[in-house]
């Protein structure tokens, strides 16, 4: 096995900015949903204001991350490409999918050889990017409500034609838990690949290199 450059620099940077943004969004978003900090009587506490400000900044960061990653999918290497997110569209991808499913259900001992995302992971990331885009759109739509005649509302206000205000809020909040579940899955799958398959997955999101046959 040899070291192969899999994740290019922009992919790694966007991965970590997305991670930081999502952590910030979850911490502040949970507070915005249900203010859990002790009430401060200080005149300059501005606790909710600060939470909303940080949430907004992280929201912008995530938006740039999603847009940037999409752009990189068009110009980056094969492991970052748009088609790498749609394994179910190719014959090889579908057979890899079966292989990965067998591996995770202990029916086979090896993952199908693949340096990029394995087929199942690729689908998980596709869903994650759709959910991130969903959070960005619903989040900016709710934010834009402070001025229904403003530009932001013109861009995102259509959300409320699809679902009522309360249900947009519900969906935006609930999606956070899907992120939690994904996070557990993500760490676990990384651990398996790294410990059991020894392909260098864990380090690859820092170095860019994985071990395997090109």
């Amino acid at each position, binding site marked *: 096995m040899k070291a192969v450059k899999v994740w290019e620099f922009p992919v790694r940077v966007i991965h970590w900015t997305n991670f930081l943004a999502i952590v910030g969004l979850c911490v502040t978003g949970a507070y915005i*949903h*249900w*203010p859990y*900090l002790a*009430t*401060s*009587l200080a005149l300059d*506490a*501005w*606790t*909710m*204001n600060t*939470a909303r400000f940080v949430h907004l900044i992280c929201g912008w960061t995530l938006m740039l991350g999603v847009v940037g990653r999409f752009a990189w999918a068009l110009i980056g290497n094969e492991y970052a490409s748009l088609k790498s997110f749609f394994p179910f569209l190719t014959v090889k991808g579908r057979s890899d999918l079966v292989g990965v499913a067998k591996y*995770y259900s*202990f029916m086979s*001992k090896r993952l199908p050889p693949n340096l990029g995302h394995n087929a199942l992971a690729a689908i998980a990331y596709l869903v994650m990017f759709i959910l991130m885009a969903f959070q960005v759109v619903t989040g900016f739509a709710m934010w834009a*409500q*402070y001025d*229904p*005649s403003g530009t932001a509302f013109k861009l995102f206000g259509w959300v409320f*034609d699809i679902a*009522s*205000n*309360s*249900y947009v*809020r*519900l969906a935006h*909040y*609930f999606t*956070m*838990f*899907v992120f*939690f*579940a994904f996070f*557990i*899955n993500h760490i*676990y799958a990384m*651990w*398996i690949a790294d*410990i*059991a398959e020894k392909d260098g997955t864990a380090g690859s999101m820092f170095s860019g290199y994985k071990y395997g046959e090109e």
Partner: protein
Amino acid sequence: MTKEKESTIATALEEYLEGRGVSRRSFLTFCSSMAATLALPASFADKAAAAIAEDNRPPIIWLEFQDCAGDTESFLRASRPTAAELVLDYLSVDYHETIMAAAGHQAEAARQKTLDEWAGKYIVIVEGSIPTAQGGIHCTIAGHTAMDILQKVGGGAAAVIAVGTCATSGGIAAAHPNPTGAVGVKELLPNKPVINLPGCPMNVVNLTATIVHYLTFGTLPTTDKLGRPLFAYGKRIHDNCERRAHFDQGQYVEAWGDAGHRQGWCLYKMGCKGPATFHNCPTVKWNDGQSWPVQAGHGCVGCSEPGFWDTMGPFYDRLPNVPGFDITDATATKVGLGLTAAAAAGFAVHGVAKTMTLRSGDDEE
């Protein structure tokens, strides 16, 4: 406006007010408050005064369908009493089932007379939802269904004003499962100019302001996509709320009557729907500007949002429950934490199994 015309109007206005026992001062105060409600410059007050003094009043027909007469109550308790009543009296309400003296055939004849004599010029105000199931038989007046009456009366009107949440989006009658197939006015009169003044009930200040706007400019006020005038529904309750500073500071009422509640802190955690509701309650308030729900210590329930019975509940929770779960307290937090726990448990079990296979050496190459 020329000096001469100005003085003519002033004289006519004085006579007009004098004859009705209203002081010029209280009338102009009313006009100024209308200007403020409509978010127009103070100079508008003079124009409104002039328009009201000129005798070009359109007759009004007030229709009630599936309603509780709550908007009529609101209408009869118009704030700025003498001056607003004057404007509303002045409008010549030719037909209003709750307040008219006539009854039966007389009343129907009076309405028909207005329809004939003022075709295309009168204003129709509709209160209550219109049932459409089974041909609309759930609400009939003088042998005609509400649907027919609305088509006939609304069809020939210059403009239709739907007052209250029932007339604008069906209201409580249209709440799930909507047995009568109740709908709002706009759905049955898609090609008419319909102004929606939702609210449970509508705030009479907004009705008066809409009418004053019509009298002054001859046009209806600018509306949003839902047909609601921007002057009244263009901003969120949350953004004009007097408790907003407590929201920003992170100071919330945790229980009814607690220290925060007594100090007027934010009602967000008590389920206030102000952040999701567009209405001018915080600025015009109710009962002659005396108070409004949030000032009185109760969260907004979002009564002016479309379909609020189904979409804005529960009144005392931040968010609705997750649909599709057959338990009463399926909050997003509970279902979400359940999902997270299930993921954690599932991968933990898988991890134990994986470790065992690794230990057994089966996986060695």
